[in-house]
């Protein structure tokens, strides 16, 4: 099933790229389509953050991951590089679990 997801997702993402280069701009260049397309990454990424950090199976929990996210916010506020943000969050959670 994981291989199916990789191939379906991969081919689909390629077709989305190719579609952009191939279809006439007027088909999709409408304000509402552009707005929705701009907002989809915002909504999906925010939902991914929330679920990744606060969900455990079907329940909502506050654990070491939330502390990791807090550290990530602080690091982003001081404009730390991507890797520092990610490892800072991981280190925080790992230390809290010792």
């Amino acid at each position, binding site marked *: 099933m994981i291989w199916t997801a*990789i191939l379906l997702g991969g081919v689909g993402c*390629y077709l989305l*790229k190719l579609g952009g280069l191939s279809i006439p701009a007027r088909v999709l260049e409408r304000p509402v389509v552009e*707005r929705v397309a701009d907002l989809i990454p915002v909504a999906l990424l925010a939902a991914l953050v929330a679920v990744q950090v606060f969900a455990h199976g079907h329940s909502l929990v506050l654990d070491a991951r939330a502390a990791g996210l807090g550290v990530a916010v602080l690091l982003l506020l001081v404009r730390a590089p991507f890797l520092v943000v990610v490892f800072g969050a991981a280190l925080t959670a790992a230390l809290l679990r010792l």
Partner: protein
Amino acid sequence: MATGAYGVSFGAVSVAAGLSVTQTCALSLVMFTGASQFALVGVLAAGGAPLSGALTALLLGTRNTLYGLRLAPLLAWRGGRRLLAAHVLIDESTAMSVTRPNTAAARVGFLTTGISIFVLWNLATLIGAVAGTTLGDPRHLGLDAAVGAAFLALLWPRLTDLRNRLVALAAAAVALGIVPVSPAGVPVLAAAGVAILAGVLTRGVDPTEFPEAPR
């Protein structure tokens, strides 16, 4: 370099989510668009169905379609070259070509950026994935917290205006609200509804241009 670090994180996070090194590298080779790849493994890590993961990845991949629409007249490729160029149509190659004054310069910017990032991204993925398998239990290393931080780092530059911040908050709330009552993977997909709703309802008006409430 930023791409290298990002690719190493992806490789490590992906094997921590339960994918094999081969699957992780295949994802970087075939999908080659960072946020979608992170989304797929993120949904899998949270226990979601592989197809929910693929669907989330596709939804995130739609922004590349918009890049393509913008670049098509500038790059002006046809046939086989367009088929090849499409694979390296990502944030970075778009950024390095969309501002160029003519087709020749845009093609150079697009290809040098796209191909070098493709090579770097796949090498970094391999390094991260191999390193990830030697690390042991992902929870002890806080790798589950790292995934959330990676998504936040991807989201951060998009939180520039009020509308985007409100959409992000609403999407997170919707997703968490339905976590208890839906299969894993569904809450994230449902959050796309917030984007659609906000995009349709804010028609013609940029909410950031609304006057501030009186103090």
